[in-house]
């Protein structure tokens, strides 16, 4: 059933092509087409996840270079996540961007980016992964650039160059694995050939580190995080949600693939690479939180939050420990849902009130009770209040950290996570407070109701529900992740 793998990848491309050839100018028709196509894509992905197996060598480019697709547990989780989030974002966009310019272009690249991400999720070797990564950058760039304002263009350039630079570092990892490994197909436990590596351990380790840093750039890993707060907030909210919520996870997936399926956890465990990585991740966690705390622009604050939260995931991965790995995977899903939701709310609020500064949001809760209600639930989830989504994942991360037995980082990690959680509360919760409890001096009685329509509230509700559900029943997902982790660590 190998060809099934191609469906989720090619279908969005076909949709994009169709939109290119026949731009749907009428809002209704475009809306129907987009939602139907994204839903169908979700269905195809589910079909693929359920039925497909094995690998599909598609394009042999050269000796030892073949574009190959395949699916495993990790691929299933990520591809479903992507398709699902895309559908929600697509729905959200229909109302949010109803009267913006260049909508046709936006949709074309929305589909293209989905295809690229699917390619990334279903990659079965390093080449395909790299291909997906590059395509993801190039296709999502127009989304980030969409508004074409000065800050958006600056952010877009930053995004482009950081991503390309990261990709170059990733490419070095590719060259290294190709030279010192038994091929570059993904295999749990890595493919390095000890006989070839012997004598070049230092170089290979350095290449692995650089690859982690490079792909980590996409997930906002310090020191290549600066693009994220510049680019994400400037995109339309639907795109920011995807950039922050999903595309950063593309970087995470690359890191997982490279570390666990190429270099191998065993090769890196206990080396300076692991420690440096841990250190970078923890620094990013703290840095992101603190920057978010002092940031006044709503969407930018969320972007810094993404820096911090994605670093949680990278921290979990860096521990090279099964429990932490499971926690990381769980956090991938949870953070995706929450950050998407948060950006949706931010988009809705900014769209309706025109305010971008968090200090201007006093009393918004009265005008948009449902939206801000969702916001409250989502931020509680991100802080990690049980029984919401963030709690379980952070718990697993902390547990794994303590169990890993890594000196210093083993206990420093949970401490940092705790501090960061407090900071998260510090930068998310005041918004809720001032939104619902603006204080006596604000006359909120005359505020007109600004609640957005169903195209916005529905995805928001779904995401909030998902946050609650993952918090209540983390079991299946955590078990699946643990099963994957067992083979890797």
């Amino acid at each position: 059933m190998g060809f099934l793998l191609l469906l989720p990848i090619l279908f969005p491309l076909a949709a994009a092509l169709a939109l290119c050839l026949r731009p749907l100018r009428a809002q209704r028709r475009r809306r129907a087409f987009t939602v139907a196509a994204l839903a169908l894509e979700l269905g195809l992905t589910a079909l693929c996840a359920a039925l497909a197996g094995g690998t599909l060598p598609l394009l042999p480019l050269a000796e030892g270079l073949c574009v190959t697709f395949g699916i495993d547990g990790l691929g299933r989780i990520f591809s479903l996540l992507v398709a699902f989030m895309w559908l929600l974002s697509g729905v959200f966009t229909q109302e949010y961007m109803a009267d913006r310019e260049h909508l046709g272009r936006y949709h074309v690249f929305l589909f293209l980016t989905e295809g690229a991400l699917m390619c990334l999720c279903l990659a079965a070797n390093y080449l395909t992964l790299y291909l997906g990564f590059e395509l993801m950058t190039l296709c999502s760039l127009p989304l980030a650039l969409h508004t074409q304002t000065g800050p958006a263009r600056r952010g877009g350039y930053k995004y482009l160059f950081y991503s390309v630079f990261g990709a170059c570092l990733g490419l070095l990892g590719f060259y290294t694995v190709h030279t010192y490994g038994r091929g570059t197909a993904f295999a749990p436990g890595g493919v390095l050939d000890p006989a070839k590596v012997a004598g070049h351990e230092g170089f290979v380790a350095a290449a692995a580190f650089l690859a982690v840093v490079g792909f980590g750039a996409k997930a906002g890993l310090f020191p290549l995080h600066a693009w994220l707060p510049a680019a994400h907030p400037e995109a339309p909210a639907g795109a920011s949600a995807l950039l922050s919520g999903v595309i950063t996870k593309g970087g995470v997936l690359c890191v997982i693939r490279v570390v666990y399926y190429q270099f191998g956890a065993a090769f890196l465990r206990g080396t300076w690479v692991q420690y440096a990585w841990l250190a970078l991740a923890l620094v990013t966690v703290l840095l992101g939180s603190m920057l978010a705390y002092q940031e006044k622009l709503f969407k930018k604050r969320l972007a810094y939050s993404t820096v911090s939260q994605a670093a949680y995931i990278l921290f979990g991965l860096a521990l090279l420990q099964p429990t932490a790995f499971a926690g990381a995977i769980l956090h991938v899903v949870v953070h995706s849902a929450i950050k998407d939701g948060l950006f949706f709310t931010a988009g809705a609020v900014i769209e309706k009130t025109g305010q971008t500064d968090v200090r201007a949001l006093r009393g918004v809760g009265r005008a948009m009770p449902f939206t801000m209600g969702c916001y409250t639930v989502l931020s509680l989830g991100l802080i990690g209040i049980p029984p919401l989504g963030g709690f379980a994942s952070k718990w697993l991360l902390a547990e794994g950290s303590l169990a890993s037995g890594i000196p210093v980082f083993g206990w420093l990690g949970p401490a940092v996570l705790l501090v960061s959680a407090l900071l998260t509360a510090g930068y998310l919760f005041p918004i809720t407070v001032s939104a619902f409890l603006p204080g006596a001096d604000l006359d909120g009685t005359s505020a007109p109701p600004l609640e957005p329509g169903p195209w916005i509230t529905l995805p928001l509700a779904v995401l909030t529900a998902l946050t609650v559900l993952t918090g209540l029943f983390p079991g299946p997902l955590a078990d699946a992740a643990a099963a994957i982790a067992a083979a890797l660590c």
Partner: protein
Amino acid sequence: MRFLMLFAVLLPLVSGAVLPLFRFRRRQRERYVFAAVCAASLAVLALLLHGPAGTLRLFPLTSTLIVALRLDGAGAVFAGLVAFLWPLASLYAFEYIKHESGDDRFFAFYTMSYGVTLGIAMSDNLLTLYLFYELLTLVTLPLVMHSRDVRSVRAGMKYLCYSIAGAACAFLGLMVLYTLGDPTLRFVYGGFLPADGPRRTLVLVGYLLCFFGFGVKAAVFPFHGWLPAAGVAPTPVTALLHAVAVVKAGVFAVLRVTFYCFGPAVLAGTWAQHTAMGFAVFTIVFGSAMALREPHLKRRLAYSTVSNLSYILFGITLMTPAGLAGALAHMLFHGVMKITLFFCAGAIMYKTQRQYVPELTGLGRYMPVTFAAFAVGGAALAGTPLLPGFLSKWGLAAAAMDAGGTLPLLGVAALLVSAFLTAGYLYAPLVEAFFPPKGAGEHGLAQAHDPGLLMKVPFFVLMAAMLALGVGSRGLLALLARIAAGRW
């Protein structure tokens, strides 16, 4: 079959030389030139399909030095590349050159340089190569100086100065080979110098003379200055000669000297190899960095060429078959990619008179085909998978990693840095064109549109070629690997 080589070399040479005698009108001249170019290309095609044909001895200069033609694997790669691109560039030139004067002279030399380039590709020995190499300088000089204004004359003199100085140095290296090696200078895979011969220092100095001498045309670092300056030539010239024929001739000559004259056995591991490779590695980064800070589009592309040529030189100086295979691949692919980019730059200049990157703002919507080609070419050059640039860079990097050692690894680092910079200097114009700042003035854009059919056809062909090469060059790469191992 052997005489077909002579035919392919002589036909463009002669038909170019006699072109001014006919006093053609424009249409007639176009037909004439295109017929000559296509006939030569078909001859090359026939030769390629037929495979290696023996040596065709033309004139003996002395009892040992003989001007002779032979097509072997490496030559076939170069000849094939040139034969593919020349007809396309001619089509492009027909339209482009309409608004410049002196068409007869232009097309005469344009056609002649085709023959000379094929001569370089089909040289049987170093003397023949040297002869055609010198001729190439002479027949391309009028093309560089085509517009006759102060800038182009100065650029032409610069070009002449660099090229002749380079050829003079290369000649001295040739003499070292002549004296210490085989006085026939006939190319033999693996070289014809004894590995443990006398006067090693002289041999190595001779190699460096050849490397830098021929390297002048390949724009290796201290001798790159002429290439950006030569961008004042009409775009078909810049595109074809300064992205493909001339510069690749330099690279090809270095290849011949390294692998077919001195031989890796003599050079590998010596300070000469390290020096050559060091300069190549430096040029890779240097060229890209210069391209990034150059606002003039054609000069930016020229600096990009500087960088990319050194990719090839780097592959050659690795002195392993894998490195050579990578170099050959990049030679082919870079030719296709860079000519596309230059054609785009030319089309923009032709239609809008805009030459600087910041001036491209918003043009993407008005010239979609041009910028689509630019996008594909740019992505390919930046090394996006599924496009050809990725494959050749991969081949080079893999060869370097296999070779190991500090300098090759530095080279890999340089490749990566350069890839990053490439993305920087090629994507930036695209962003400018497609995503202009909001509210940017669009005056003067309304009449900008894609060029005519003659210029569009090359765009489509080249885009298709890039996509095809990107995904379907497995057989080609295997063939190049065979050639690089000396088995063709």
